[in-house]
């Protein structure tokens, strides 16, 4: 299967323009970029994708063993870029995908010429002298919350009795909504995301990097963003005023401004 199909890729913008690849993080899918992608695609070749296991990607490709490492996702991103014949790529990663972006760059140094890390955190769990913001019991609580919320996905009993996924009416209903990821996969992705540690990968980054930090972000707090900024040599950090973890939804204008100023100073 082609990477573009596997990752439900959508490409827009002028074909000769500099490519900008937008990678969503934990929680939803490429729809998260809805308020910034169209503007960027005026003068950039914008590539949107769904990580394997999320959104409209090929769920059958989600092998939990393979995707227990973020490198698996970054390999997919690299494969897509190569398949599309891209070069001089700006890789934008939100949340855990900021680390996926870092790993993609390390795995394919020739491909990416700039990184934009939106709400990044190299490690979510607190550690000696490091404030990630979370304890193990917080993550367990998240997993429990996710277990109780299937958001209109088929209920767990359905899997035992009928194969509801073949129901076209049900499919249509789900396709009309966003942030509905398959519960088992979403849970696994949550574990991989929140129990990861990519702090040692940061110093190896060798391209211009922008860190976008929301002032009051409860998922990637300032301590985490500052850590990323300090350990990626030459990186720039911009703080976006406000609350929340998704500035490209809650403050799209500021987000675009920061990215544009970074790309053409």
């Amino acid at each position: 299967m082609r990477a573009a199909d596997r990752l439900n890729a959508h490409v827009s913008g002028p074909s000769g323009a500099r490519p900008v690849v937008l990678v969503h993080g934990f929680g939803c899918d490429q729809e998260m970029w809805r308020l910034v992608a169209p503007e960027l695609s005026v003068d950039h070749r914008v590539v949107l994708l769904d990580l394997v296991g999320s959104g409209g990607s090929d769920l059958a490709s989600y092998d939990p063993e393979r995707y227990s490492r973020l490198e698996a996702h970054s390999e997919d991103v690299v494969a897509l870029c190569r398949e599309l014949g891209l070069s001089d790529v700006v890789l934008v990663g939100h949340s855990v995908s900021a680390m996926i972006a870092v790993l993609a760059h390390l795995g394919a140094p020739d491909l990416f010429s700039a990184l934009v890390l939106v709400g990044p955190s190299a490690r979510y769990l607190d550690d000696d002298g490091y404030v990630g913001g979370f304890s193990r019991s917080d993550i367990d609580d998240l997993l429990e919350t996710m277990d109780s919320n299937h958001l209109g996905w088929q209920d767990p009993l359905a899997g035992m009795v009928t194969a509801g996924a073949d129901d076209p009416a049900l499919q249509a209903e789900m396709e009309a909504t966003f942030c509905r990821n398959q519960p088992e996969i979403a849970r696994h992705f949550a574990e991989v995301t929140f129990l990861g540690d990519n702090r040692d990968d940061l110093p190896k980054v060798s391209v211009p990097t922008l860190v976008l930090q929301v002032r009051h972000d409860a998922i990637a707090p300032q301590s985490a963003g500052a850590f990323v900024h300090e350990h990626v040599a030459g990186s720039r950090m911009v703080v976006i005023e406000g609350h929340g973890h998704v500035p490209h939804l809650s403050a799209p204008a500021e987000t675009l401004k920061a990215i544009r100023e970074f790309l053409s100073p």
Partner: protein
Amino acid sequence: MTGLRPDLFEQAPCGYAVLDASGLVVEANAELLRLLGRTREQVVDRLTLAQLVSAGGRIYLDTHVFPMLSLEGVVRELALDVVQADGTRVPVLVSANLAPGPEPERSLIRVVVLEARDRRRYETDLLESVRSIEAARQVAAELAETLQRTLIPPTPPAVDGLAIAAAYRPAGDGREVGGDFYDVFQVADHEWLAVIGDVTGKGVAAATVTAFVRHTIRDLAMQHQDPSDLLQALNRAVLEHDTDRFCTLVVLRLVDDGADWSLTGSVGGHPLPVLRRTDGSVAELGTHGSLVGVIATPTFTTFEHRLGDDLLLLYTDGVIEARRGRELFGLEGLLPLVAGADHEPAAVTATVVEEVLAFQDGNPRDDIAVLTLGSARRRAVAG
């Protein structure tokens, strides 16, 4: 009307809150404050929704709920835990929608909160049951697959002076292994046993009987020189094994006397071995005997043969029972096939398997097992 609305909000039978774009609670009704276990002063304009739910709920709000509200304008039936001032967790169901403002920063969020203690307990129990059933089912499936995979007939061992060509083709997608089996094993210096058989049925139940039969034959082969005695003993063992299942079997004892292989054999409810001589003539060898493991007094007859340059073909009934429409492959199809093949065990085995599969358009309705033996000595001499 204006007099009515504050009362509708304040006295609603569900918790009702209004949040600003940052998640701060700007209005809360009596029922919500009751659920939160806090006073108005402690909550309104002081705490955000994130601060009022559990740690996991907080993460969930920022990674799923607020983006969904932003993209769709509404979320329904979220299961969250509110944490009261004293730490008590209250399971609730939450629905919310967006009241857009002139800018995203000026939008408001309406939130309805319903207590859901019983429902949550029920759902948790249900989820746990489903999980453990799934786990058990998974374990059972893996066990079944492992067991069956170990019973697929193995590659026969290399026997000095004997050429063996064996083939096995399961029916269907091969996931449910049938009862066909064959074995070649040593019982003494210069003495080997070759066995081919078929246990009734398919799947795990048949597989366990197959395992039992293969294992028991190895034991009995040490105690019973004569193949018919062996089958009698095996018959007793299978009867005692407390199963309705039984098997069909050909047992061949091969003795290397230095110059030639001398065979003794016995057949129990199974197609007879087929002999192929160097001149291309073919014939069945042996006498039909009873099914093994059905009745208490079966009949088995021992036959003898000096192999010389002959080839001996053992096969299971999937070969002769193969069908195409109303046409049966049968012995009438098999004997000419063997006669026409090259005088080599590998050639005979390959030809039989190919033709039987082709006869059924590649879809065997039953397992096929084929084992052809021949002396390897003459080839060494001929160089």
